């Protein structure tokens, strides 16, 4: 019998929902489960309702799914809001001090912190979280020792006493769950021979950036982009990275351009509204041919929209943002491993083609924890494409060239002067109003895309290559679509996924080839207008048969996609 369980841990902000989810998910991952953890939170510091979902299985997971098997409720609201999602085998573990009303027909387990650790409220709060973790492991008959080690790792910094409360509480919960144990027995799952990673999209991109030789990052905080900035800042000292918090997004991108002009590998990022502020300088990076990677982490708009939710609504925006025909590349990873590889690649492409490279992520991609193997994070190459040799004496920053790429020097390597200008300019970098030069220089800049598009591909396929039905998607929708395809195949409906992660300059040839032979094309996107659909039509003339769109701020689930296909399959 395959194992596939969904845990939902819910409470008010400030109750420690996130604090317990990570150790729990990690303990389960170390034990050998494939774990996938999704965060759902509101834009507030305390109160409100937030929950995390942890799905665990004995096989690789690509997506979260609907339904709840184990509801861990730290407050009443969690029970009230989620009890209807409980599966027939479902069970509730709850904080008896907070939860008073339970559905009558669902087995439940009460955790009472007061009986365990009398005294300070703080102790009780910590205790109930750890106790819930212990109870979950007891229920699943997973050894407790790895969890106790993680509690030591997590709370060691707070002193031996805090660790001891947590260890006591987890042990008590583990014992208490004994009565119900066996309901979800998973004794047959053993730790993998090689350790796996539990990592979210933004953490993986931070690793890709650092492995790719990042030297400078600056940004202004904005959800959901901030988690990437934080993940790099946390490691900055170890990896010799300059991290500067900018006064606004306009400063962030201009500062990153300055650092890159001076030769540092530079990255900045933001989310929707912040990118609105960056667009003028996006053109500045393009016209001055300054390499730059910009991460745009999407959330639902327009304007402030739903700040802590997810969407893929900024593709059209980043494709065309900034005035004039302004060259850029646009990438959109689908998994943490892709995020790792594409971030390193983006740094290389930015340097090689001397233009801004935008990486689109979203809240779901950034915050969702995936289980990966270390082999999925291979060593990356660093290609700075800098000219640092002896001075030619006649250096021109924007020398005309067949591929549009001019030799790039930076200040500090001898007498060659590096003159960069936002005005239209002559090859030596000085402003000009010579209209013939304008055409020649503009052609030179745009010609770089012809070389870059030759390198573009980024197509991931899954399912039956000969299937009549093809589901097309991009960015973070990969997982849910891949699982939808697997489920269709399980129901004897051959289907195929074509996922795009390299979106601009659009790899029209490879995409058209990948879609060839399909009888029915369905575009699956997390936005209201079908933005990749427009792009596909524009670049290849291909017209899809059906669109499955979602823009309520919650991530795709395989079930949602399958419902969207009903009537077609």
């Amino acid at each position, binding site marked *: 019998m395959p194992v596939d369980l969904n845990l939902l841990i819910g409470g008010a902000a400030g109750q420690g929902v996130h604090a317990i989810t990570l150790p729990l998910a990690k303990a389960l991952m170390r034990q050998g489960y494939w774990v996938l953890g999704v965060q759902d939170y509101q834009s507030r510091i305390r109160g409100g309702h937030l929950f995390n979902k942890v799905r665990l299985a004995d096989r690789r997971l690509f997506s979260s799914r609907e339904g709840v098997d184990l509801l861990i409720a730290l407050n009443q609201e969690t029970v009230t809001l989620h009890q209807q999602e409980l599966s027939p085998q479902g069970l509730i573990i709850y904080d008896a001090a907070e939860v008073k009303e339970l559905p009558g027909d669902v087995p439940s387990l009460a955790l009472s912190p007061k009986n365990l650790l009398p005294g300070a409220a703080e102790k009780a709060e910590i205790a109930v979280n750890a106790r819930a973790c212990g109870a979950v492991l007891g229920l699943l008959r997973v050894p407790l020792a790895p969890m106790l080690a993680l509690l030591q790792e997590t709370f060691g910094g707070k002193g031996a006493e805090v660790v001891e409360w947590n260890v006591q509480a987890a042990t008590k919960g583990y014992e208490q769950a004994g009565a119900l144990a066996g309901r979800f027995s998973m004794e047959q799952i053993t730790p993998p021979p090689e350790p796996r990673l539990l990592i979210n999209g933004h953490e993986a991109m931070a690793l890709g950036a650092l492995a790719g030789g990042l030297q400078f990052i600056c940004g202004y905080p904005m959800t959901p982009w901030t988690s990437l900035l934080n993940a790099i800042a946390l490691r900055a000292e170890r990896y010799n990275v300059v991290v500067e918090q900018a006064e606004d997004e306009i400063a*962030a991108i201009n500062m990153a351009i300055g650092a890159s002009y001076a*030769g540092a590998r530079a990255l900045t990022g933001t989310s929707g509204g912040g990118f609105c502020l960056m667009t003028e300088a996006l053109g500045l990076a393009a016209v001055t041919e300054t390499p730059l990677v910009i991460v745009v982490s999407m959330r639902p708009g327009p304007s402030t929209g739903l700040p802590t939710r997810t969407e893929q609504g900024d593709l059209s925006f980043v494709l065309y943002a900034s005035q004039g025909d302004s060259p850029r590349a646009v990438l959109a990873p689908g998994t943490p491993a892709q995020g790792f590889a594409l971030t390193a690649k983006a740094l290389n492409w930015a340097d090689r083609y001397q233009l801004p490279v935008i990486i689109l992520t979203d809240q779901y991609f950034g915050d969702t924890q995936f289980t990966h193997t270390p082999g999925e994070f291979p060593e990356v190459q660093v290609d700075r494409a800098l000219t640092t040799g002896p001075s030619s004496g006649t250096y021109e920053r924007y020398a005309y060239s067949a591929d549009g790429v001019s030799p790039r020097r930076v200040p500090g390597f001898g007498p060659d002067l590096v003159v960069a*200008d936002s005005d239209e300019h002559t090859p030596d970098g*000085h402003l000009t109003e010579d209209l013939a030069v304008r055409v020649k220089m503009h052609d030179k800049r745009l010609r770089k895309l012809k070389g870059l598009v030759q390198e573009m591909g980024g197509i991931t396929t899954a399912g039956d290559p000969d299937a009549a039905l093809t589901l097309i998607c991009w960015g973070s929708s990969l997982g849910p679509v891949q699982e939808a395809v697997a489920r269709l195949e399980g129901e004897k409906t051959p289907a195929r996924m074509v996922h795009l992660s390299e979106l601009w300059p659009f790899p029209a040839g490879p995409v058209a080839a990948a879609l060839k032979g399909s009888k029915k094309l369905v575009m699956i996107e997390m936005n209201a207008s079908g933005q990749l659909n427009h792009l596909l039509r524009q670049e290849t003339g291909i017209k899809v048969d059906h669109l499955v769109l979602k823009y309520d701020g919650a991530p795709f689930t395989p079930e949602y996609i399958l419902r969207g296909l009903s009537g077609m399959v």
Partner: protein
Amino acid sequence: MLPIELYEGLESAWCPGCGNFALLKAFKQALGELEIRPQDLLVVSGIGQSSKFPHYLKCHTFNGIHGRTLPVGTGVRLANPELKVVCVAGDGDCYGEGGNHLLAALRRNVDLTLVVHNNQIYALTKGQASPTTDQGQKTTLQPQGVPYPPLAALALAVSQNCSWVGRGSATDPGHLQDLYKQAITHRGFALLEVLQPCVSFNRVNTYQWYRERAYRVEESPGYDPENELWAYQKAKEWGESIPIGVIYRHPRPILEEAHPALAAGPLVRQQPKRDLNQLLADFF
């Protein structure tokens, strides 16, 4: 002493008689006296007549967009602390469009020089009020007169303990040349505002207007640029008399020192640590 011909750039497109000519010449002379080679200097500019300044020089140049000289210059310094950086902006560019960056720069104390060419008007767009246009002055966009007072940028800088604050004038080029030298050699953020007559669009603040008012503050009794309260009073002085010279000096640690990654010199010369196994270990 290096010859000023070394810094000869493109032929200028400024109006004949523009105050900028005096600034350009004094700047070149200051560079020559300081023996700063073109390859050791970056001039960052934005948009406006002042922002053409680096094109008329010979040095590393980054002519960016309106209002953003300071973030670009800051980014450069945080990547290469060996490069001498001078940001050149106008009153509209720096005090208007890029105001937030000035506030941040005053706090950061990056080791760069900000020169604000203050002609008290928007010249490139032909004569609208700038943040420093005097109250009541009639312009193309404010035919009834500017309804509010000008920004006292130097007083703002003193109030935030800017590490070096000074004012020069196109009407006193020898004095200006010395101020350039002091600002460029100052360790930390130096704000040098230069009174620069616009002969085409500002018929009020003319050469004569500035000549009648600007006086060398260091020659006046009680000169005390290390004294914050004295400096604040001098920075607020504007009208019948306008002090020029070093107004405030307040040495403090520079931002570059706060970034350990810069201790080993320019980032471009460093070999990044890229230990993948160590990176992955956090997630097992």
